[in-house]
């Protein structure tokens, strides 16, 4: 199965490579190897062919082959874990890599998009011509930036930017925010590549009948968003229950924010409109907001990478379990293989697990 998947991943990558020097498919497959829990790898361009062959095409890892939600009243739901929206927020990317490599889904389905904005991972604030690389044991990952790479966009930035479904009195954002994926949902078919990526992801969530979706982020140490979860008011209870579970497991006390129309274009607000229980999770990243390359990530005293990845994984486990529990018409979604301690994640990051 593993060999088949590797071959599949290679074929997907190879067919894209022929069209373009490097797509996000190749980039992600150089950073993570699908484990036995992955049942299929699909390019996001399967859901919107406009992305095919571009640096914005990125893999969607499907885990478990559980029945779709429509097949029975108690069928387990499908959940989605999305990371790399902002390519400098690496703890979420690594948490999704853990899931792809080490988790299994015996009941229900999980789709994981570890680098949803792959273009953001192709450049850095320090060097627009290429990403910064972070060595982690036997793995090297890219430390990208918050926005898509302007050199890879099909349209120039507008003078100012308003998210696709913002209300009439929404204050315009700076033009470069058009390359911020987390302002572009639900996306635009005819927009820039970032908007098309948001559009493709929205189509994927609908096609996969996703009922619960997480978007994993990080914030600068002094931001009030650190250790927070954001969701629409109707899903606050699931987030609150998850906050208690996460505290029990990690000792970290999360606080909650509720999303509203001022969050137009954000994942949790726009995915929520599709009837999805959607949550955004924030851990602290000591290198933000400047992406300071001198900041040690792995053994950072204030916010060690293993702790951030571990908390993201505990948050994913708790949010999915509690949100699934609160879905009236769905069975349990079972995901196995989450880490049991921060030390375990540390050993995995260092390549000694």
């Amino acid at each position, binding site marked *: 199965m593993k060999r088949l998947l590797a071959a599949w991943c290679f074929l997907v990558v190879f067919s894209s490579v022929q069209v373009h020097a490097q797509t996000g498919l190749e980039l992600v497959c150089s950073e993570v190897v699908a484990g036995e829990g992955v049942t299929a790898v699909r390019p996001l361009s399967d859901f919107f062919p406009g992305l095919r062959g571009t640096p914005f095409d990125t893999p969607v890892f499907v885990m478990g082959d559980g029945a779709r939600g429509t097949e029975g009243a108690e069928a387990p739901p499908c959940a989605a874990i999305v990371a790399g929206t902002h390519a400098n927020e690496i703890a979420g990317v690594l948490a999704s890599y853990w899931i792809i490599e080490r988790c299994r889904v015996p009941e229900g389905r999980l789709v994981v998009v570890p680098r949803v904005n792959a273009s953001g991972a192709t450049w850095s604030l320090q060097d627009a011509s290429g990403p910064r690389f972070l060595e982690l044991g036997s793995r090297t990952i890219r430390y990208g930036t918050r926005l898509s790479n302007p050199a890879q966009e099909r349209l120039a930035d507008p003078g100012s930017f308003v998210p696709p479904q913002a209300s009439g009195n929404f204050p315009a954002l700076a033009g470069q925010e058009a390359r911020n994926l987390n302002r572009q949902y639900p996306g635009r078919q005819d927009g820039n590549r970032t908007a098309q990526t948001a559009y493709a992801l929205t189509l994927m969530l609908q096609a996969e009948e996703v009922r619960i979706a997480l978007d994993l982020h990080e914030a600068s140490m002094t931001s009030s968003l650190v250790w*927070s979860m954001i969701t629409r008011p109707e899903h606050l209870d699931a987030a609150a229950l998850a*906050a208690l579970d996460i*505290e*029990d497991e990690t000792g970290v006390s999360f*606080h909650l*924010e*509720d999303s*509203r129309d001022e969050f137009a274009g954000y994942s949790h607000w726009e995915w929520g409109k599709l009837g999805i229980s959607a949550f955004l999770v924030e851990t602290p990243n000591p290198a933000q907001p400047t992406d300071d390359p001198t900041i040690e990530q792995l053994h950072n005293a204030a916010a060690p990478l293993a702790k951030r990845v571990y908390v993201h994984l505990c948050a994913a486990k708790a949010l999915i379990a509690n949100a699934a529990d609160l879905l009236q018409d769905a069975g349990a979604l079972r995901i196995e293989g989450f880490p049991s301690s921060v030390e375990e994640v540390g050993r995995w990051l260092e390549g000694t697990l």
Partner: protein
Amino acid sequence: MVRKHRFVARVLSVALMAGIGVLQVCAQGTVPPSLQGSFLQPGYITSAGQTSDAAIVKVLANTRLKLGFGYDIAAKPQSIAGAKTLVLVLGASNKGLGAAGLSLEQDIERVKSVIAEAQKNGVRIISMHTGGTARRGEASNQVIELCVPVSDVVVVVEGGNNDGFFTDLCEKAGVPLVEVASISAAGNVLKSLMAQQ
């Protein structure tokens, strides 16, 4: 004040080591013995400042501890009719205020009216702060300064009182302060404050 209660608890714990049956209750933490079991049901939870942390306190009290409290993040005076204990979850949230369509000033007026109703009816007040440093700042401090002096006890999760703001306010107002390390520990305090049914 915190130190005093910790000291009392420690002295009591040591004194009770001999094997008196209430050791568990006293050793549980820093809840002054005179307050344990002294708050009556039914309880009612609302926010002061529209912090979503109120939702955490709600699931803590109702889903985990089965206390069956009423809840409205933006409760009005009439909401607490029949309640004997009012739990105020402290913290100003711009997003929460926006979601409720309230300015901070309007929410402060709402909280004042709920407190007045509680005082009129002899409803005792527990103030809780669970949001850590994220729920501290000028706006949050305004609601904290409003609620602490009218409370019968204040429960704060570590971090929220890093600067001793709650300690000072509680000392000035003569209100017992219980500081805990986690939100779930705050739940244990809440449970021990409530009279057994």
